[in-house]
């Protein structure tokens, strides 16, 4: 139980209410529309916003308990916060920024610098250690911000959209870094891939409240709101590529248009799959016999969730559902064009 919190807090007229319980070393991802209160929630955990009611326990330490008049200031909490609009200190160069937390924790200049160098290396910014923040691109600044928070080596790492300004390749590298960090992480993101790959627990916030919690699979299987459904409506598969052929973890082989080798991530939109009752004779390179696991009508569309051999989500029209007589357990054929697949190295 690394974070145990019952939170009621307010910023002006905006109130948030949340219950959080996370395992040590786990990654909790918070999602929600803009203005849902995600940043506010993280700032409450960091101690920047006072609790109105409730209790926050971080790594066994009661840091907030208004009833008993306890409010531990941010610098005495077992946390480090990566702030959203990358507030690097403009008067310190990159390595001094990253060494800041270590210096605060009492390390001497040399050791703090060593630790900063290690983290700058991990985020791929080692060769820019002497630059000032004004000379960095937003992506570079974001990586320095990530290193600066991580270099505090806190018990709990709070990350407010840490990867938004990064290009695809750097983003993948940084995502691996976030996976490798074994501290407890609380992360805000809008990226469905990050959610699937990083989250041990997904919290969906809306209007200041947590409206759904669970593993990403659980939430995706039964999204409580349209917003959540839309966010998680991305099909994500992992496999191993040999040229334009990708062997999925269950042995099924998909054909793509991007030749790659090694472990890859495949994504495709739920509109990319077409369903039919008979074996399709289209130009689609990937066809398979599928089984319908669930059917979820949403407005004039229906989300069909297929399981084996390729678990995926498919949007079809109401008309198609009737024509194909789709129902839970129905077997049908699925076709997926190779050109609809986005493949990238994992």
């Amino acid at each position, binding site marked *: 139980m690394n974070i145990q919190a019952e939170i009621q807090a307010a910023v002006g007229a905006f109130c948030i209410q949340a219950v959080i319980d996370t395992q040590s070393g786990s990654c909790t991802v918070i999602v929600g529309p803009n203005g849902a209160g995600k940043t506010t929630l993280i700032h409450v955990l*960091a*101690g*920047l916003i006072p609790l109105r009611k409730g209790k926050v326990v971080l790594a066994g330490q009661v840091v907030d308990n208004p009833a008993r008049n306890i409010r531990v*200031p*941010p*610098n005495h909490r077992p*946390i*480090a*916060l990566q*702030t959203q*609009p990358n*507030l690097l*200190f*403009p*008067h310190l*160069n990159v390595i001094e920024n990253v060494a*800041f*937390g270590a210096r*605060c*924790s009492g390390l001497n200049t040399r050791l703090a610098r060593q630790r900063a160098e290690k983290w700058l290396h991990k985020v791929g910014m080692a060769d*820019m250690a*002497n*630059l*000032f923040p*004004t*000379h*960095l*691109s937003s*992506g*570079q600044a974001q990586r320095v911000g990530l290193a*600066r*928070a991580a270099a*505090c080596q806190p018990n709990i790492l*709070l990350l407010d959209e840490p990867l938004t300004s990064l290009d695809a390749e750097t983003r993948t590298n940084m995502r691996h870094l976030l996976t490798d960090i074994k501290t407890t992480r609380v992360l805000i993101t809008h990226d469905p891939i990050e959610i699937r790959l990083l989250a041990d627990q997904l919290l969906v916030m809306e209007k200041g409240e947590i409206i759904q919690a669970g593993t990403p699979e659980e939430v995706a299987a039964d999204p409580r709101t349209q917003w959540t459904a839309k966010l998680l409506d991305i099909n994500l598969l992992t496999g191993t590529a040999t040229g334009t052929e990708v062997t999925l973890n269950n042995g099924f082989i998909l054909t793509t248009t991007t030749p790659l080798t090694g472990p890859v991530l495949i994504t495709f939109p739920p509109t990319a799959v077409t369903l039919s009752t008979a074996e399709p004779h289209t130009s689609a390179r990937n066809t398979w016999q599928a089984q319908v696991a669930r059917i979820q009508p949403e407005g004039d569309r229906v989300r069909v969730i297929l399981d084996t051999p390729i678990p995926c989500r498919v949007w079809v029209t109401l008309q198609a559902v009737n024509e194909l007589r789709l129902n839970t357990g129905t077997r049908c054929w699925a076709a997926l064009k190779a050109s609809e697949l986005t493949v990238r190295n994992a």
Partner: protein
Amino acid sequence: MSDRPAPKEPARQPPIIIVVIAAIAVAVLALPLIGLLQRTPWPSLGSTLGKASTLEALRVSVVVSILAATVSVVLGLPLAWVLARLSFRGRALVRAVVLLPMVLPPVVGGIALFFALGRRGLVGRALQNAFGVDTLIGTTAGAVIAAAFVSMPFFVITAEAGLRQLDPRLESAAATLGAGRWTVLRRITLPLLAPSLAAGATLSWARALGEFGATITFAGNHPGRTRTLPLAIAQANESAEPEAAIVMAVLLIGVSLVVLIGLRHRWITPYAHKPANSPQTSPS
């Protein structure tokens, strides 16, 4: 869009009218100085400068102006912080009172100080009873108080503007990285504020150096104690020694120019635009 002509390059040449007006502004400020320099008795400059009374006035001026600027910074910085960061009833009134010495004629300031701190003044009597301070009038301390009275607003207004520009989220970011209050102040707030503080200190020092009215009204005109260069200049001018007045004026101008030019980087260049001491790289 594509069939439209490409937008004009911004003109390389600055607009003539602006340059002309700027030149007139420089003339308004510089012409009196040129008039002064043109009347300066250059051959006897050295001997007048070397006179004991001139050097004494210079010493008093330097001491009084530096002490006044120090008082302005020490008292003015917490005041600027309160004005910038705390919201309380009557803040507008406090700010108006703080800025009042900028608009008051210094002589009025001197008279007001006299009624407050003079031997029978509001606080002056209390000082005498409590600490046995006989009087501030006629002392260098009095001259420092008079100079600080007129110069502190320049520091407070500049420091407050600097504090308002400082993003408080930088300070909370530092706190979430483990920095306590004093560390935040020492490593974030003060360094970020440094350009504003330097600018404010320079301005208030410059104002104190030129101070005349409040000093002569409150502290008096005593050689070696309160007679600063401006007082000595006025004295010389009135006692039919215009040459000495001119020479001391040139001295005052010289000292001011040296300091203002020497500190120019501190008070017009913020940290962010300082050239980095490492090569620039193109963003990846």
